[in-house]
């Protein structure tokens, strides 16, 4: 592996500035690496020519001393972000030939700061899944112990695997119920889901609009902070995007946890969770204590209902958002004798099984006679869950939980639907409450697979989450290049 692939964001920016290498050289290294890691099936589209052109511009900027915040940083983009004139499919057959005429706000902000677009990364179809197994173009393989063919997690599985296999320096993903944090944990990298409203949703293919948030997947906390600074901010094109000031998140990293109160919710110690993951959580509690934080036991009794709320709210919103795929304006069309038959055939052929299940559940909970019993009920419990977090955050500054109940499983090994849904049991509550969360890698388990823990914080306190995450990172010393990672 080229030494350039070992560098993190700040090292790359410094290296190009000091003329140790150029943005074009670095980009070529990543494009070569993408060829070598092809077997992991992460990239749906590699935009090599465009990437080289962007890198040439980056080198010009360095020459003129006008380099921007991410000048020359090679980035992979989850296929949920619309990219102008680059095919964008949401890993679905129904969008297999869709070429957007516009660029999503978040990706546009990255390119405007000099980042290099390497291409589009696989995900679960319409971001619905926790294993990347619902992608139309096949499974992505977790770079760790890749010979064992394990899941990278989902839905941002391609994004997490690309960063973990050094086939992108950073990647962007979307998180609706854990789709950034869970794959980050499975792949041994850092995954940040910002506060709902922190990043614009404009140009992101909609799944569940009241939950969807974009965020960075990176090798470390500092890279994550640098990326989020660029991605975040108000956008008039997304009425739910926040006017909140976007601080320089890197300023938080050296503040430590001394005097902070970290809450440990007892409800996250559920049965079925791996002993080793619980041990890693205990280890992190020790890190916090050694660094002067106060550990506080807290309770979030409604946690056990979060998944049920999620599996009403998310499919309901999805069934409505996905109504637009009708074979008329873009995407696949399967002909039929009437307009309705054309719609039905197009959608029947174009959507995969998981997407169909969710559209059906969404249609069910929104249909007349069931709306109050399911959808309205779920929205009420959602409020109670949010209130519960608000109360706990009056007592503590941050919350520590495991990110996932297990480490990565073998592809094809989870046949039971509800077992699959349980992957998101620790990440969904924060999504419902709209609060920010991060997964930070801590350990490898006895099978050599990464374990992550999750830090949750108050709305718009991503800076503080990075600050706490940095203490975990510095103490755990997790090595993304260690034995078992993709060589």
């Amino acid at each position, binding site marked *: 592996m080229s030494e350039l692939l070992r560098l993190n964001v700040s090292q790359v920016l410094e290296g190009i500035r000091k003329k140790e290498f150029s943005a074009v050289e670095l980009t070529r290294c990543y494009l070569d690496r993408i060829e070598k890691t092809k077997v992991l099936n992460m990239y749906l589209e590699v935009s090599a020519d465009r990437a080289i052109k962007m890198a040439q511009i980056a080198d010009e900027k360095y020459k003129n001393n006008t380099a921007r915040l991410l000048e020359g940083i090679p980035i992979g983009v989850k296929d949920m972000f619309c990219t102008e004139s680059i095919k964008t499919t949401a890993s679905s057959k129904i969008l297999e030939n*869709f*070429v957007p*005429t516009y660029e999503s706000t978040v990706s546009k902000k990255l390119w405007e700061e000099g980042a290099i677009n390497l291409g589009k990364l696989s995900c679960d179809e319409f971001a619905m899944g926790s294993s990347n197994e619902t992608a139309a173009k096949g499974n992505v393989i977790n770079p760790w112990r890749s010979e064992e063919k394990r899941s990278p997690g989902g839905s941002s599985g391609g994004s997490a695997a690309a960063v973990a296999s050094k086939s992108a320096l950073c990647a962007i993903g979307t998180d609706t119920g854990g789709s950034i944090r869970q794959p980050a944990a499975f792949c041994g990298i850092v995954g940040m889901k910002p506060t*709902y*409203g922190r990043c614009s949703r404009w140009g992101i293919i909609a799944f569940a609009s*009241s939950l969807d948030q974009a965020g960075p997947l990176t090798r470390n906390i500092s890279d994550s902070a640098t990326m989020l600074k660029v991605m975040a901010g108000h956008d*008039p094109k997304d*009425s739910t995007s*926040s006017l909140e000031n976007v601080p320089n998140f890197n300023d938080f990293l050296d503040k430590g946890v001394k005097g902070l109160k970290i809450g440990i919710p007892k409800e996250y110690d559920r049965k079925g969770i791996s002993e080793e993951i619980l041990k890693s959580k205990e280890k992190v509690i020790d890190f916090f204590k050694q660094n002067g934080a106060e550990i506080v036991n807290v309770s979030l009794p*409604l946690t056990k*209902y979060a*998944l*049920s709320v999620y*599996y*009403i709210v998310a499919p309901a919103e999805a*069934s409505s958002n996905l109504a637009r795929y*009708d*074979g*008329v*304006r*873009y*995407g696949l*069309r399967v*002909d039929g*004798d*009437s*307009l*309705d*038959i*054309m719609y*039905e*055939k197009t*959608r*029947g*052929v174009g*959507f995969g*099984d998981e997407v*169909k*299940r969710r559209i*059906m*559940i969404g*249609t*069910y*909970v929104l*249909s007349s006679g069931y709306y109050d019993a*399911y959808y309205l*009920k*779920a*929205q*009420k*419990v*959602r*409020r*109670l869950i*949010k209130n519960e977090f608000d109360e706990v955050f009056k007592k503590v500054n941050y919350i520590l939980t495991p990110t996932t109940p297990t480490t990565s499983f073998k592809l094809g090994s989870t046949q039971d639907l*509800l077992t699959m*849904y349980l992957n998101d049991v620790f990440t969904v509550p924060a999504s419902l*409450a*709209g609060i920010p969360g991060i997964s930070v890698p801590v350990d490898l388990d006895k099978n050599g697979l990464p374990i992550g823990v999750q830090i949750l914080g108050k*709305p718009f306190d991503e800076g503080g989450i990075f600050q706490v995450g940095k203490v975990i990172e510095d103490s755990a010393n997790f090595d993304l290049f260690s034995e078992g990672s993709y060589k």
Partner: protein
Amino acid sequence: MNNENKINSSSLAKLARLARLEINKDSEDNLIKDLNEIIGFIDQLNEVNTDNVHPLSSVTGHELPLRKDEVIDGDINEKILENAPEQISGYFVVPKVVE
């Protein structure tokens, strides 16, 4: 309530019609089983007392802002139509609709 199957062959057909989804005959039984399993699971919300709780539809807490209704981009009809499965003279084409 949990043990009672809420979805059967005829309610599945009705839902599929509402969702404009053609369901393969072969996959019907599996889909019915899956949907009943999910509905059985989400039914656990009945245990939670939600009397006098106001439903939460957005976590932002801010009022949706208003803006002027004005054209800020456009004139890309042709580019947009390139994505259409079928188009004639600047229009999207759909199967004939006869009432």
